[in-house]
Each structure stands twice: as structure tokens, then as C-alpha cells.
């Protein structure tokens, strides 16, 4: 039996009402040809906007663009085992955890399944209520553990709070979430390339060697011809909380090409596949820090 390439899986966490379902719908609308599989704890109050649904077959809801949505009820691992048998396989799994779940624990379990590779953990925080929740008699430690587990925190519903309150809230979130990247959002709106890493292994994602930006995000391409200490580089990228994602192929000090993938503060360094060229794409919140020294000076 040939081992298929593992499917990337992104965990979406956060308490009730933080905007998890809205984010899922937003990503489905902007899937751009990616076949997403959504795993939700429950189908309740139907989590998917009606116009995206093509057919509802009970356990699996078929969505536009070849996407699907399944409910995992009380047995997430079994649902993941079942999903791995889907044909064709989805391009990317989005796992919406329940409001009280600890997304880090879910990611730890997912890491045991050979059919999946963890892309990252996105945790939504409701700008209006997150601090109040984080001091709730019953839920405080759960909320804080969710934030701690995050690679990316979406500070959602920022349009509902005063601009003056944002810096303090950002600082508080940064402290609670370690070095996670913090992104302010409204209605959970987030470009899909920021939310989900593409995992092509052939290096095609480096074809577009341009630097471009939107009002909030910036994508930069770095031509890395020199050798660097990949571990030190990854650490520096991880420490810059503006940098949300980075991916590319970097030549290490022995001259061997490595794959570097980073989300928030978490990164993986693995042996690069054959026939790829060096280069690194960095996506982050504007303005990105000046990385030229980091990337060339080590």
C-alpha cells in the first residue's frame, strides 16, 4: 500500500460566539478551487450558509466547489480515520473545535494520525468579551489555555470596540498567547492564504516571486542564495509576531536544502524535496519588520 501524502489540517478554536463558524463560511466562499473538508462538532443551527450547500446526506453535507462538511459528534478521531478514506481526498481539512475544547490537545491527537499533518492552530477571540471570559469563574482557565495553544490569534469583531482600547487588548493577548501572531479581523474575514498554508511539495508556490500587499497584509519573496543556520532563522521569524506564515526552501550551513514552514511561533524544518529552488515566502501583518539582515546576515 502506498502511503499517500498527508492532508494538511488546520484547527480552529475559540469560545462560543467568537466567530468560528463565520470564519469557516468565509473560507469556503474564498476557497479558490481548494477542496476543503470541514469537520464540526455538531451540525447545529446549520454551521454552513445555505447557499453553499449542494446536498445534505445526513452525516456528510456536500458543498460547492467539491467541499464537504461532516460532524464528528463525540468521536473526533474516528471521524478523522473515516475522512482519510474519502476519495478523492480533500486538499485541506478545517477542524472547528467545540467552544470548550483545548485546540492544542486536539492538535496533539491529530499528530498521531499518519494521514494528516498539522498546518496550524487558529484561535478566535471576541474583542468585546474575551477578557471578561478569561476571568469567568468556570471558564477562565479554558479560555487562557485556548489562547496559549494558538499559533495565530484572530482578534475578531474589532469594529465593535473603541480604537483606543485596541493597543492594551493586543498587548494582553500577546502576553496570554506567547509569541502567536495576532491579527485583527471583522466578521472573521481573513485571506485564505493567511488562514491556511498551501502544502504543495513541488515548489510551485515560489513561482510568483513578487512582493505584494493588501491594506492589512503583505507578502514578500526572498531569494535565498546564501547558506544560513536554518534553526536560528526560524527562531527569528517566529519571534516577530507580525509574521504569520513563512514557507520555502533554505540552504543550511552544510549547503543542504531544507524545507522551512512556519505559522505564528511554530515551525518545522525538514529535508527539502528534490528539484526545488531556494526561496522563501513570508506573509504577515503590515508593516513587516525588515528581514533583510535576518535573511542574509547570519
Amino acid at each position, binding site marked *: 500500500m502506498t502511503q499517500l501524502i498527508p492532508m494538511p489540517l488546520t484547527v480552529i478554536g475559540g469560545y462560543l460566539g467568537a466567530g468560528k463558524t463565520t470564519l469557516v463560511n468565509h473560507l469556503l466562499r474564498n476557497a479558490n478551487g481548494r477542496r476543503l473538508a470541514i469537520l464540526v462538532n*455538531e*451540525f447545529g*443551527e446549520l454551521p454552513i450558509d445555505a447557499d453553499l450547500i449542494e446536498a445534505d446526506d445526513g452525516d456528510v453535507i456536500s458543498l460547492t466547489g467539491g467541499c464537504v462538511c461532516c460532524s464528528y*459528534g463525540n468521536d473526533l478521531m474516528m471521524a478523522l*480515520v473515516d475522512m482519510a478514506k474519502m476519495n478523492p481526498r480533500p486538499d485541506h481539512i478545517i477542524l472547528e473545535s*467545540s467552544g470548550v475544547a483545548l485546540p492544542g490537545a486536539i492538535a*496533539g*491527537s491529530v499528530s*498521531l494520525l499518519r494521514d494528516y499533518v498539522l498546518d496550524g492552530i487558529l484561535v478566535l477571540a471576541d474583542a468585546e468579551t474575551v477578557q471578561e471570559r478569561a476571568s469567568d469563574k468556570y*471558564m477562565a482557565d479554558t479560555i487562557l489555555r485556548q489562547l496559549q495553544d494558538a499559533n495565530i490569534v484572530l482578534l475578531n469583531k474589532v469594529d465593535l470596540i473603541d480604537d483606543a482600547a485596541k493597543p492594551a487588548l493586543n498587548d494582553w493577548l500577546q502576553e496570554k498567547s506567547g509569541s502567536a501572531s495576532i491579527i485583527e479581523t471583522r466578521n472573521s474575514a481573513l485571506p485564505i492564504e493567511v488562514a491556511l498554508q498551501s502544502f504543495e511539495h513541488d515548489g510551485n508556490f515560489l513561482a510568483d516571486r513578487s512582493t505584494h500587499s493588501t491594506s492589512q497584509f503583505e507578502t514578500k519573496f526572498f531569494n535565498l542564495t546564501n547558506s544560513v543556520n536554518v534553526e536560528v532563522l526560524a527562531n527569528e521569524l517566529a519571534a516577530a509576531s507580525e509574521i504569520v506564515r513563512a514557507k520555502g526552501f533554505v540552504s543550511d550551513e552544510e549547503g543542504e536544502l531544507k524545507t522551512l514552514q512556519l505559522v505564528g511561533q511554530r515551525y518545522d524544518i525538514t529535508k527539502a524535496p528534490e528539484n526545488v529552488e531556494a526561496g522563501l515566502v513570508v506573509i504577515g501583518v503590515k508593516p513587516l519588520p525588515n528581514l533583510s539582515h535576518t535573511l542574509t546576515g547570519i
Partner: protein
Amino acid sequence: MTTIYSAKKIITMNPVRPEATHVAVRDGRILGAGSLAELKGWGDYTLDERFADKVIMPGLVEGHSHAMEGTLWRYTYVGYFDRMDPNGKVWSGLDGIEGVLDRLKEADANMEDPDAPLPGWSLDPIYFNNERVTREDLDKVSTTRPVGVMHASGHILNVNSKALEMAGLLKTGLNNPGVPLGKDGLPTGELKGPDVMTPVGIHVGFDRDMLACDEQGLVDFAKLCVRSGVTTATDLAARLPDEAVEMMSRVTARENFPTRIVPLRFHHGVTPEELIAHVLELKKKTSDRLRLGMIKVVVDGSIQGFSARMRWPGYFNGAENGLWYISPEHLQQIINSSLEHNIHIHTHTNGDEATELVLDCMEEGLLQHPSRDHRFTLQHCQLADTAQFRRMNKLGMCVNLFANHHFYWGDEHYNLTVGPERAERMNACATALENDVPMAIHSDAPITPLGPLFTAWCAVNRLTASGRTQGEAEKIEVDEALYAITLGAAYTLKLDGEVGSIETGKRADFAILEDDPETVGGESLKDVGVWGTVQDGRVFPASEL
């Protein structure tokens, strides 16, 4: 057609006439209990003297069990304690890893297909000085077939190398607290927690939904009920899809099915609105021996799994607080809707913080939807303190305490999980009764064996497996314990008008005993022999199952 049974003694649980020598039965119900002379007044009768040297009690009620105990017996039993299977065979307890391996080797030798999985259950290394079972140990059983042994707690699974290999986990570099690694960097074969157990468990023969019970499992579970004197038993958490309800309706309706089954709909996996809607539908399908329409809500995890939600100061060994399995908002919504629709809820809480949350939500729910007789029941509720019992009383709640837990894991709670003081207050039966909280006690079978008389023994003696008395002040009297396993449990299910005592008009549900539990002494309650049961007037000798 009236049958009058004679007995050495009939314990009625009816204070009007607590003892009798005869009981008259017609159409599966009790005409009355008394002397033969008194009962003759009902007209023509047949005198049945087969119980003349037996003691008759009301059929025992198990208020917290899972029908999957019947299913588990198809796997190899490797527990530390002697345990009787549905066919009456007593499997001797195993007091070391060698014994466990020998029994698994025997099972292996009896299997024809060399690739078929070999599942075992009820392992408990705390009785082997906590010596861990490794994959190398289980490789001695087989290297060709996947072998997996579930712990008694249900929270840990040990597997052999073949099983790890099949799940893709026989490799280095794993980083998961649920998968301990050996010196070689490979998993030791111990898998802790449901999420880690599932992907390997499917390869060793553990079914996809561990709480599900199939047709054979339900029949076998009912046999265990007869052997332990139980005539009404809960199946306390099931998803109850249509096909399962259809199967249970069909099986329980059989003329020779001996047990009244009360399945509760598990809250997980559906929204509160869907849950209420489903249970209202289920209510319509209720039948005499299949009572549907109740809800089970799981609020937290387990104490020995360190997933129970604890109030300050938390776990004795410093473990991080446990997990919520439902948000307060959803719990409140389910409670409010259930009060509004007169649906009966039982909540699973182990830690005292989880219990506190349920009490808070009940207080709020009852303000919005006052209910005079809801009987919402806190299940397990192992760590509740006196103040919480007082609140239960004020809120009209019942409690079903996990008396058996004290025996099997009391020492571990004392030393490791909650520490000495709280270990002594765990499953506080005496405090519940002092505060007039209607109380039942339970086995949580298959976590511990089904057997209400054993459960009563646990509550009366509060001995741990090592032989210490833990929590002298929380012991209860024999009569209180016998009440808890009959009327007490029936009350928590709103069945006390039908079962739980032997008196006019009630179901002819009896436990037929070899000894008199009222006189054998509290220390011998667990040894009271069970001849079988009578359920709805039908006689079920354990010897003929």
C-alpha cells in the same frame, strides 16, 4: 390467574408491612404481600413454593450502568478481581502480568485466523505495584496479530508492536503526552486518553463507539442483570440513533427478555435544540421494557484520568485542572428547555467544580421554569461537599453516588488524585441522607462489575482494595444501602411508583436471594447469593440462562 409465592422471608421496602411470607402476583403485577391466609382473599390461586427457602427482595435497580458490559464479555477478561460472565462462568482474577499474558496466550491459541485482533479488557496495573505492561510483554502473546488490552478505568489501552505498526505509530519522534516513549524512542505501547486510544483501538478489535451495544451485547447484559438480581437497569449514555432504538425495542419486547432497560440520550454531538427535539421523539417510542425520553449530560471527565473539573486547590499531585465537556451556556440551555418540556436529565459530574456549575445552572433554570418534581439527578458527583448537598436539597435534586469507586480506586484517590481529606469525603452517602437528598448508588458497569449488593457493601463498609476504611463518617447502614439499590434508584428514574418495593399495584419485579441481606451483616452483603429474578411476573433462574 393468580400465583402466590411463598418465601423464607420477603423484604418489601414497604413500611406498612416491611416483612411478609407470601406475595400474590397477577398479570405481572403485585396483588399484595402478606400471609397466605390474607392473600387467599384475592380468589383462586396457584401456590408456588419454589422460593420457600429463598429471600425475596424488590427487583434491584441499577441507576448507572452501560449495556456495553454485555458486549465486552466477547473480549478476554484480564482483571485483578474474580468476575462472572453472562453465562455464569467466574473468571478468576489475575494478580500479575504473567497471569495476564498466560490468559491472552490461551485466547491466542484458541483463535484460528493468525491475523485476527485479540482484545482484552479490565487490566489494572495499580494492583501489580503499578508495573506497566509494555508492547514487548504483549509481543510474547503474538507478533502476528494485533493485541490490545483496555484498562479497567477505560482510560488507558496497552497494545503490542503489531498494533502500533498497523496504526503507523511504531516510530520515533512522537511527541504526545498520551503516548509514553521507551528508551529506544519508540512508544511503550501504553496509550492514554480516548483520542490516543481510538486510532489504535480500531486495529485491536475495540468497536468504533465504545458506548454502543449491539443485539448480542444487550441480551448478554440482561443475563448479567438476572445474575445480580437486577430487574431495571439504565443504559446511561447512548446516542440512540433510529436503528439502535429499533433493535432495543425489538429485543426487549421478546417474551424471554428479563430486564427493564432505561437508556438515556447522550447530549454530545447535537445542539441543545436538536437534543430536546430528539428526546421528545424518543418519548413516543417508550415501551414497557424500554423506557425512553431522558437525557444524560456529561459535564466533565474523570478523577483518575485527571480530566474532572476540580475546585481549588485542584489535584493532589498538582496536575492541571480537567476538561469541560460542555459549555455553561449549552448546559443552561439544555436544563432550561428540559424543565420547560418536562424532560428528565441526569448529569455526569465527577469533580466538585462541575457539580457546582450544575447547581448554579439549576438555580437559574428553576427561576425561569419552576418545577415541583423534576428529580434531576447528579451522577457520580463523587467530590461534592456538604454545602453542595444542602444546595441539592434546596433545588430538589437527586444524587447517584459511585460507591464502588471507593473500593477500586480509593487508595489511588488518597495517595494521588485528591489526597487524604477529600478521599475520605468522596461519595458521601451519609451526608446525602443527612441532608435529605434522594440517593442511589451505582456500579457504572462495565467500569466496575454490575452488582447492587456489592455496591451496597461498598457504601456500608467503605473499604478500599488495600483493606483500609476510608471515610468512617460517610458509612451508611445496611437498611439505607438496601433502600438505595431499590426505591432510591427507582426514585431517580421516576419509576418508584412502579418498581422498587413489593406492594399492591406495583410490578412483580423480585430479586430472589439465597441469603437474607438484612441479617447476614454489613460485611457479608457482597456474598449474598442470587438465585435469579422475577420480572413482570416472569421467573428467570440464573441457572437456566
